[in-house]
């Protein structure tokens, strides 16, 4: 083995080293002195010395700024400590792979990139002599994660840094055995089996499987194919995957006995999903059809919802949670979250949609969290930085703009963060005459696995604990995404689908091949897979591991036999690995073979429909809450500045700028706009094509804080927030006229704490479940009222972090992610004020609703008066906004949200060269605190040109409450009964708002 080390010449700035040095000082209070970064490549490949030197000099070294060392490691007496970070065995080493491709090109030789020959390691030379503990703290905080990285820390001894490179070669015995499992055991043993194998199957579910294997017909059928009445390890694992909460949504499909403790009213809900989510969309579909609106194409039964965007294009939209993986490995969790939801879009219908944009909503513990960390708990700042970097690379490296997002902080997210990742895509409505949204498969169609190879990554998802990771075995707790591999896959699918070479497709996510093939097999009612054909990253995987592995960047593609040759040729030209692993049948069985022998033979109907329905209990209890004593404010400017710099209101600029929100050149309303490019906006707006004025608006509604008072109003409020953001940028409500192509498409994403009652482990489970029911009721009421349909979504049910006898549960949270079409780019509106003298109005009514407001939070109060959504009133407001915008009367519009009217006003000035002079007299008979800080829903701050006053007021009547004028004074002046209560300079407000997160 040879090594090549590159490092930056001393005359050039080592910016990465400087950045780490600063972080150590600021966040860890460790003085490191100078840090020098360096990269070490271990080359495990036959190569002549001459070629090795040439390769290093030409292909690895930056000829201007770098020095290179061959078969030597860098030494310099200046440095007294060292940290070296490599991947653990089996973890994707993208840089190593790229270096290997460079070597192949350089030598003009075929080198199988699937056998790793080049391994990389980052080495950090540190000037000061630090203890091993300090070095490990630095390494774990900024440089690596022991779950996926091999970390060496070395302190100088005897004037020497004893460093030897580490090579993470996977060394494993080939083990192709298939274990037989006896289920004829006691209940206790069944439970133990489920726990030991990390199957997460309940006793009832284990019993259902046992009964299936006792069925005489089943035994007879198994005999015919050479299987005994015992089940195989792969069969048990496939049951665990297919019946997992993740795949079967057992709690959303449970029978719930719901009791309102106050009224004594009892009801039985047969599946939250069917009753409220699908239930609402079914009704909306009827409403739409009755009105000759036909844009709702496909909902719920595919990887993503599909609506018609234009005459010949479909819009495909999906948002998912990736909470648990992000808690373990923030970077890996977030990047696989983004890339995973990308694949949902790529594998909807026939497949091959072009990815148009990403969006994300992130919930973290506060970055300045100062409570003691529990075992296994990562600091919220660490989680935030890792997640943000994951979203950055996931989007930027795939060339997908991140156009919209939101970050929410709360102590209760310090155990488990919530990471919601979304992607929208555009697909032709047909490929060579075939409806693109359909998923046809016929018997004998081939099953092709495309993209990355299979390793042990993500077997059993995130349930594997780190203690079970053996140093020489590939780690399996988390997966690392490779955006470049996936970009190749996505480029290929777009081309192949257009050529008619793809008949159907789906992605390999949770459960890997077992769920992708298992689900597609339902279409023809059978499939045969030959597992030995599946290409592996390294040998040593057992057959069941191959089938359930969650290795990333893979799609399962259905190809008709006559197209196989052309399909394979195209893949070869685009350097994408594709493998024929089986075919579809109508046998009724999922028939999995290894080297010719059947090792899995389960009735598909039982596999998909045999899971017993879960039963759960919910109890609604009313809270005894009250409003605080009137809070007396001495200095309102002080409150304004405190709110502007508070965690849930302050600027997200340093996160936003890390995301490419311009790539594709279609972004119209970006997160920050205006004169200085720093004015915060509401919904993101993107054009559908370069040659058309049609655009879409993207918004996210989330407000978990209101759930502390009322979960129904929290859910309704989040829905309203997403709607009003789209109205603010110039959107229009759906189904207000016939033959209208203004589509709306919504993803609902629930992330709630464990809501299954258990007397010891979860004593308040019933109340938690009641909150979930209320959230669903609000979803139903709001969506059917507006005819805004859910088209896809996800539920994440166990968002608790447990360690050292402490449980940190997230507040019940729902995110509504909405996309709607706006016919003309020229009708869109931004939030910043546009001209001196423009008139400012508040649209919509403020109520005495300070409950759970940011204002109360400043004083440590919760209050009782939660903002309520008054949907009839709200709809009337939105229709008037639409009317005013149609007449081009609106110069700026901004929705009123966290912090209330005062903060919304400040946000309309931030990033401009204006100010505002505003009086609060017209806002009704309310306390000044309520006028300024209440977070009542369905309101906007709007500015108009003075000449439009009459027309504007005629539309809105009493709904438009005149506030004042835009000034050129660079300050915000607020008058209460002609007395100035705030006079704040724009510079002060901007300083307060621009907190570095």
């Amino acid at each position, binding site marked *: 083995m040879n090594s090549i080390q590159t490092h930056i010449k001393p005359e*050039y700035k080592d*910016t*990465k080293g*400087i*950045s780490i040095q600063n972080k150590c000082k600021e966040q860890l209070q460790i003085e490191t002195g100078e840090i020098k970064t360096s990269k070490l490549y271990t080359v495990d490949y036959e190569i002549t010395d001459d070629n090795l030197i040439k390769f290093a000099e*030409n*292909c690895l070294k*930056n*000829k*201007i*700024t770098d020095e290179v060392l061959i078969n030597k490691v860098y030494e310099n007496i200046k440095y007294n400590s060292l940290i070296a970070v490599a991947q653990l065995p089996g973890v994707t080493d*993208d*840089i190593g*792979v*790229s*270096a290997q*491709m*460079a070597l192949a*090109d*350089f030598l*003009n030789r075929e080198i199988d990139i699937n056998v790793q020959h080049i391994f990389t390691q980052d080495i950090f030379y540190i000037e000061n002599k630090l203890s091993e503990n300090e070095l490990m703290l630095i390494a774990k905080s900024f440089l690596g994660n022991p779950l996926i990285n091999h970390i060496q820390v070395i302190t100088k001894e005897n004037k020497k840094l004893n460093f030897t490179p580490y090579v993470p070669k996977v060394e494993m015995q080939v083990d192709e055995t298939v274990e037989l499992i006896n289920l004829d055991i006691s209940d206790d043993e069944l439970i133990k089996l489920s726990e030991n194998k990390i199957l997460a199957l309940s006793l009832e579910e284990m019993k259902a499987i046992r009964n299936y294997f006792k069925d005489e017909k089943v035994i007879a059928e198994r005999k015919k194919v050479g299987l005994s009445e015992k089940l195989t390890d792969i069969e048990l694992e496939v049951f665990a995957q297919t019946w997992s909460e993740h795949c079967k949504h057992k709690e959303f499909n449970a029978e719930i006995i719901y009791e309102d403790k106050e009224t004594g009213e009892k009801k039985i809900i047969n599946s939250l999903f069917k009753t409220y989510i699908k239930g609402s969309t079914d009704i909306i579909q009827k409403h739409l059809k009755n009105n000759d609106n036909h844009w709702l194409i496909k909902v719920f039964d595919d990887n993503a919802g599909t609506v018609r965007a234009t005459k010949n294009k479909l819009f495909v939209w999906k948002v998912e949670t990736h909470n648990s993986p992000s808690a373990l490995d923030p970077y890996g969790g977030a990047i696989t979250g983004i890339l995973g939801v990308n694949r949902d879009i790529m594998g909807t219908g026939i497949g091959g949609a072009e990815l148009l944009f990403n969006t994300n909503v992130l919930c973290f513990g506060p970055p300045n969290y100062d409570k003691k960390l529990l075992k296994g708990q990562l600091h919220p700042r660490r989680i935030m930085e890792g997640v943000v970097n994951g979203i*950055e690379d996931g989007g*930027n*490296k*795939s*060339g997908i703009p991140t156009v919209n997002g939101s970050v929410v902080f709360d102590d209760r997210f310090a155990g488990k963060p919530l990471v919601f990742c979304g992607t929208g895509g555009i697909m032709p409505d047909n490929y060579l005459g075939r409806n693109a949204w359909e998923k046809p498969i016929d018997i004998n169609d081939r099953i092709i696995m495309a993209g990355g190879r299979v390793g042990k990554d993500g077997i059993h998802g995130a349930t594997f604990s780190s203690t079970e990771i053996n140093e020489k075995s590939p780690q399996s707790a988390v997966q690392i995404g*490779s*955006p*470049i591999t996936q*970009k*190749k896959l996505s*480029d290929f699918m777009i081309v192949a689908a257009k050529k008619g070479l793809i008949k159907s497709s789906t992605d390999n996510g949770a459960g890997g091949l077992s769920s992708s093939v298992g689900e597609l097999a339902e279409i023809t009612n059978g499939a045969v897979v030959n597992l030995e054909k599946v290409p592996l990253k390294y040998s040593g995987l057992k057959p069941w591991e191959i089938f359930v592995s969650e290795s990333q960047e893979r799609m399962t593609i259905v190809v008709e036999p006559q197209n196989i040759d052309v399909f394979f040729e195209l893949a070869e*030209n*685009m*350097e994408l690995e594709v493998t024929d692993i089986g075919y579809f049948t109508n046998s009724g069985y999922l028939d999995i073979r290894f080297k010719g022998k059947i090792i899995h033979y389960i009735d598909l109907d039982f596999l998909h429909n045999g899971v017993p329905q879960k039963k759960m209990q919910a109890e609604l209890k009313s809270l005894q809450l009250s409003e605080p004593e009137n809070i007396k404010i001495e200095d309102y400017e002080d409150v304004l500045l405190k709110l502007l710099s508070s965690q849930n209101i302050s600027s997200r600029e340093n996160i936003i*700028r*890390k995301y*490419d*929100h*311009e*790539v*594709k*050149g279609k*972004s*119209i309303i970006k997160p920050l*706009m*205006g*004169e200085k*490019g720093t004015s915060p906006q509401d919904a993101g707006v993107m*054009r559908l094509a*370069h040659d058309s004025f049609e655009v879409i608006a993207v918004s996210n509604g989330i407000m978990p804080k209101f759930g502390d008072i009322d979960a129904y109003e929290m859910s309704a409020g989040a829905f309203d927030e997403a709607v009003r953001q789209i109205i603010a940028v110039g959107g229009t409500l759906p189904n207000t006229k016939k033959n209208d192509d203004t589509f709306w498409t919504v993803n609902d994403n629930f992330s709630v704490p464990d809501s299954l009652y258990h007397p010891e482990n979860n004593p308040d489970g019933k109340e938690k479940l009641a909150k979930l029911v209320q959230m669903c009721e609000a979803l139903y009421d709001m969506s059917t009222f507006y005819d805004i349909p859910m088209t896809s979504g996800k539920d994440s049910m166990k968002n608790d972090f447990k360690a050292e006898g402490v449980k940190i549960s997230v507040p019940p949270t729902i995110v509504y992610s909405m996309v709607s079409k706006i016919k003309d*780019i020229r009708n*869109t509106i931004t939030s*910043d004020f*546009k*001209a001196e003298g423009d008139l400012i109005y508040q649209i919509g009514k403020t109520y005495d609703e300070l409950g759970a407001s940011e204002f109360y939070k400043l004083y440590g109060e919760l209050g009782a008066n939660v903002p309520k959504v008054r949907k009839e009133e709200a709809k009337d407001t939105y229709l008037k906004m639409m009317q005013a915008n149609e007449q081009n009367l609106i*110069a*700026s519009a901004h929705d009123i949200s966290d912090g209330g009217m005062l903060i919304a006003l400040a946000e309309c000035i931030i990033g*401009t060269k204006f100010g505002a002079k505003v009086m609060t007299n017209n806002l009704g008979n309310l306390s000044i605190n309520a006028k300024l800080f209440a977070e009542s829903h369905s309101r906007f701050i709007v500015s108009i*040109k003075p000449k439009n006053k009459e027309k504007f007021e005629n539309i809105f009547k009493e709904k438009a409450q005149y506030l004042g004028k835009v000034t050129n004074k660079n300050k915000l002046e607020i008058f209460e009964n002609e007395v100035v209560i705030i006079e704040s300079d724009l510079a002060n407000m901007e300083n307060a708002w621009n907190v570095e997160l």
Partner: protein
Amino acid sequence: MIKSLILTGFGINCETEMGAAYKNAGAEVTIIHFNEILNGTYNLHDFDILNFPGGFSFGDDIASGKVMSNKVKYKKMQSGKTFIEEIDKFIKDGKYILGICNGFQILVQLGLLPNLKNDYEPEVALVANNSNKYEDRWVYCKVNSKVKTPFLKNIDLLPVPVRHGEGKLVIKDDTTRKQILDNNLIALQYSDKQGNITDEYPKNPNGAEFSIAGLTDPTGQILGLMPHPEAFLSFYNHPNWAKLKQEGKEIKRENTGQAIFDNIIKHIER
């Protein structure tokens, strides 16, 4: 019709908007996977302009543009030649090359820019921004009035987005510095809104020497730049469009990024 060839694949991701820019300018656009050049499906010499769009070829692994440039330099094509040999002929034939962002990084790694000695050896490098992070922000670029590339004709000041983590241009040595200046190879420099060149962050987003945002070669046929003119094809891409529209000051086509593409097509047509 002028034929514009746009290379993609391996993580390049700005090919669509670049295609739209050339299409708007009236060119015939061909977007192909780089392997379709290597395997002989397409012949470079059938085209008038060769384009390396932005993106993350090979994930910026090793160094941005490095692995892709390596392919261009060493990988033997179907014909037995390397692509750099074809590019050499392409330039000698008087044809044009444009590289944006990752494309600029590739051109620099290839030694095509600034190429003072005509030997395709790197003389400058694009390295990590002083901020040590990727940033998306709009900047102003001042066009060097003495630069002789047709791409920038009649353009004085261009608002344009930058989106990169490795865009700081550093120059090999003083001799190279002097020659770049003497030959007017600086094409674009980061400036303030009035066009005054500045090295103040974030107006100069990365800390580049002489605030260089783009370079050309001594022939003027090759242009490379870090900012993305192809992301500013429409007035509605500009971050302040809504206010400008209220003021009746819509930005005209010749003042958007489209102008660069219009220029080169007009120049070749002539």
